[in-house]
């Protein structure tokens, strides 16, 4: 569910960092996640397949996101998660659930 107001900047920053960390956890590549330098834009356009993320890797990514996104956002439903093909799709799905 989209919110009527744009989410607060600190919420966006926390969720961006969470998405980056979860994608890094699910990919066998080292995506050089760092709290100080991480900007999700670095990997936003990548397809999950280009990051060598398997279906089980995607399950790991969504588990990490859904377990840590609250209270900033609601967990992403399975049917939405399976449609995400790029990191940008993942970010949009997470942001759509901002509380």
């Amino acid at each position, binding site marked *: 569910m989209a919110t009527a107001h744009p989410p607060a900047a600190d919420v966006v920053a926390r969720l961006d960092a969470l998405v980056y*960390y979860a994608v*890094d*956890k*699910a*990919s*066998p*590549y*080292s*995506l*050089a*996640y760092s709290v100080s330098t991480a900007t999700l834009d670095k*990997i936003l*356009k*990548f*397809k999950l*397949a*280009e*990051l*060598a993320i*398997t*279906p*089980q*890797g995607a*399950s*790991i990514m969504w*588990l*990490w996101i*859904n*377990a*840590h996104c609250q209270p900033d956002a609601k*967990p992403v*439903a*399975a*049917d939405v998660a399976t449609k995400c*093909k790029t990191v940008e799709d993942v970010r949009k799905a997470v942001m759509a659930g901002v509380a």
Partner: protein
Amino acid sequence: MTAPRMRSLPHPGRAVAVVLAGVAAAVPVWGAGLSLTAADAPVNTPWSEPANLSVTREAGTSTVTADLVLNYQSETRYRKSAGFASKGSYSVGVYLHRDTTATAPRNDRGVAVSYAGLLVSDFSNAGPVGSLGYAVKLGAGKSVVEVEAADGSRSWVDKTKIRLVASLGGYLQPALGGGPTPGVIAPILFFDGGPAVYVDQLRGQGIQGSGRVTGGQLKLGANLAPMGLEPVPMAGLAMVPTLRVAAQVQRDFSASDSRTRQTRKLYSLELNLLFGRPEEEAGKLVPSLQLARSVGADLLTGRAESAKTELSLGLTF
């Protein structure tokens, strides 16, 4: 997702069944006319109803194979701590597996209750990708089993079956060097498998075939997608080839009554080809081809010692 669809009927009392895809609610309103409203089916249903039925006619004899499972799954619960994240859910379901093949009939029906979870630890992201699944499943029902009489003759009898299986399922994808490149799909290699323990009890219809078996199982599999898991155009076709090699051993710890302790091994080699681009052709049928060779036995799937080569053509939509 819940936008109502409307159907107006001019005369009250006219019973018309309006079936929309998965009607979730039908609310009649009496007044100037009868209105039926129906919401779309919920996208996330807690139940699943996979079923298949096939009839094969060979040499004047027909055989019927049916697999029906109605399953209800609870809402997934997430947990987290500084070192891990996990999720889990309960399921309860009824099942029917029927095969009328004369030489290997199957007639399993009953109920099953299970809990399954997935755990991910917070090890360094620079290393391999891994997870640990865990599941406990209790099933109770009736099964047709083959028994051997004292004179050596064999027959099929209906037994009451209770089975408890607790399993761990590991997943490991080795780390890749370098970094990802836009437009480049890397080969995929990952391993899966793990240990399990089981208790399998059969009772009723005589002593033969009755008794309890306890044991342990270890299963390991290696999976390779040499061109990644994204369909790659080749010779006018887009396809995803994958290769899987697996080995499994089951060793009974104890056996009672007429059942005997056994060690069962099962080896398999599978080559899968998925054609097309599923994500770009939603609603279209996507063919797949699987060639599998397997040798061995499996107590938990009811497979007797055998060697099989199977060629399967599938359609996904």
